[in-house]
């Protein structure tokens, strides 16, 4: 880069490039500020006392930082319940999703059966059906399942473990089909000749080789089930059954009195797990994100 820039003959080109670079940085800084303002403001607010929040001072700065909002939340029975419910639901959904989609992706990409090609396309299409189309019929369906079986479906956190896989499985299957399809056919043939069963081909060859895909799909499943808001709003109502997003919104924002320090802290802590995963596994996260479009 600099070697190219320092050649004297190309002075005008060099100046042009330098300006392009400067402008790029200017706009990148601008957009980064725009993009990062809300999360940073969450952090700023979470460190303030209620008094400072309602005072007419510079809102973008903390003059008397305190962790009282954080301790307040750790002491809150309700918030701990939300967090625990979110964790149990998300981890269960990840496990269920990975089992279902890995088995299906292996079958669809390698073994083939009558109608398997149609099913692979169908999987992608179902990913496009939004949850907003499904929550009302599901609500009614749960009501009559309850009538038939006597199992109380409504207002239980574990119902989310049943419905969240509809959000995660199609896309994860799609990602895994893409990764599995890129494994050369000879690799499983070699393993078959070496004496592996189909199941061993999956566990000893496909999963290790497609590990980046498995990680990407796991991250996707976790973040989606951690973030979902509509299903818990529709299917859970009491405080002890709620997960984080719905819990924060419905219990902390009540009436006209907002405790903003508390709300921002709760939201920030709620955003922490996906942000941490992203910070440590950014490349896998992005691979999963782009896999859907480029492999589709």
């Amino acid at each position, binding site marked *: 880069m600099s070697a190219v820039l320092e050649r004297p003959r190309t002075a005008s080109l060099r100046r042009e490039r330098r300006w392009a670079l400067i402008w790029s940085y200017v706009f990148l800084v601008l957009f980064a500020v725009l993009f990062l303002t809300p999360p940073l403001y969450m952090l700023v607010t979470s460190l303030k006392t209620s008094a400072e929040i309602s005072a007419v001072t510079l809102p973008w700065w903390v003059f008397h930082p305190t962790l009282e909002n954080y301790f307040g939340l750790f002491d809150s029975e309700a918030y701990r319940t939300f967090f625990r419910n979110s964790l149990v639901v998300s981890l269960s959904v990840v496990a269920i999703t990975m089992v279902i989609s890995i088995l299906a992706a292996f079958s669809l990409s390698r073994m083939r059966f009558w109608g398997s090609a149609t099913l692979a396309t169908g999987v992608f299409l179902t990913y496009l059906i939004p949850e907003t189309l499904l929550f009302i019929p599901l609500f009614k369906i749960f009501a009559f399942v309850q009538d038939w079986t006597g199992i109380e479906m409504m207002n239980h956190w574990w119902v989310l473990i049943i419905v969240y896989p509809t959000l995660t499985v199609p896309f994860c299957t799609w990602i895994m089909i893409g990764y599995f399809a890129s494994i050369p056919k000879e690799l499983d*043939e070699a393993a078959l*000749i070496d004496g592996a069963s189909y199941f*061993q081909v999956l566990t000893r060859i496909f999963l290790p080789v497609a590990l980046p895909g498995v990680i990407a799909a796991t991250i996707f499943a976790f973040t989606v089930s951690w973030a979902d808001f509509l299903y818990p709003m529709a299917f859970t109502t009491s405080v002890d059954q709620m997960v984080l997003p719905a819990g924060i919104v419905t219990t902390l924002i009540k009436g006209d009195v907002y405790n903003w320090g508390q709300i921002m802290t709760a939201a920030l802590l709620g955003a922490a797990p996906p942000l941490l995963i992203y910070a440590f596994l950014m490349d896998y996260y992005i691979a999963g994100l782009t896999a859907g479009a480029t492999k589709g």
Partner: protein
Amino acid sequence: MAQVNLRKIVKDYDDVPAVRGIDLDIADKEFVVLVGPSGCGKTTTLRMIAGLEDITDGEILIGGDLVNDVPPKDRDIAMVFQNYALYPHMTVHENMSFGLRLKKVPKDEIQRRVKAVAGILGIGELLERKPKQLSGGQRQRVAMGRAIVRNPKVFLFDEPLSNLDAKLRVHMRTEIKKVHQKVRTTTVYVTHDQVEAMTLADRVVVMNAGLIEQVGTPHELYHSPATIFVAGFIGSPAMNMMRCGLEESAGALRLRLHGDISLPVPAERVARYRSHVGKANLLLGLRPEHLTETRAQTLPGQAPFDVTVEVTEPLGMETLVFFSLNGGEVCARTNPSANLQPGKRAPLLADLRYMHLIDEASGRVL
């Protein structure tokens, strides 16, 4: 004993025939090469022996047992793939021992066998590397090692050298031959390269369009091809095929190539060819090395004739000379000292003791 027998093997892909009925008996410890142009069914045949393709019709026996319905892992075979198919997440050692570990062979036994085979192949220092860290030739060795270490009844090779550069290919060819001489396992080897086939094989099977054209030792295929396909496929530069007529005069036979070129058929061939006198669609097959510059002494069966040289290709130890005859191009291998020049008339010598007379209509060598 690990002989392989194919009985009337047929393979159709959705009613498109790939292999159209093959009979082949491969003896124990024999090195057999299947060779032919792409799409001739050689790889399909190999994959059917491996059990990777099911058979539409016919029978395959390995070591005398019918294996049509036996899955690949129970056939006691090992295969080396064109792209090596090394497991990318395993070290060389793990790659080689994978099959043994699946069979629950005791650990020290695995160690012993991997060490021994790595020694044979000279990859002892690479055992802890991953395939990514290996060169093409090293990957090739590991793929072979993975096959050998299992000590199978039959080795199957599917164009194992075609991903290597020319120099390495020649080297690995010798390696494969050496390894076979050491371990003496029945081997079926597929390639499209006739030089590879000739140098490696005990017997070569030439395939074309889903059928076997000819089976024989390299020597037999080269000197007595049975069909026009084999005659043209084996040998480089390829055998010259010249349209000709067969005439009889006073008990001797002559080949008429062109208005003013007529060559005598050697006396020992007269009886064999007499019944074909006057037939249409006859070709004279003559390899380039049997078309040379004239020599001081002409032996019986050799016949001189004059041509106009069009192009010469000096290769150092010999010079290829091209001329046309009846609209077809003909190649001769001459001694550089003869110094034949393009555009000039030159006398050549046809050594008809090695001639082949081919019936173009039936494709048979007469």
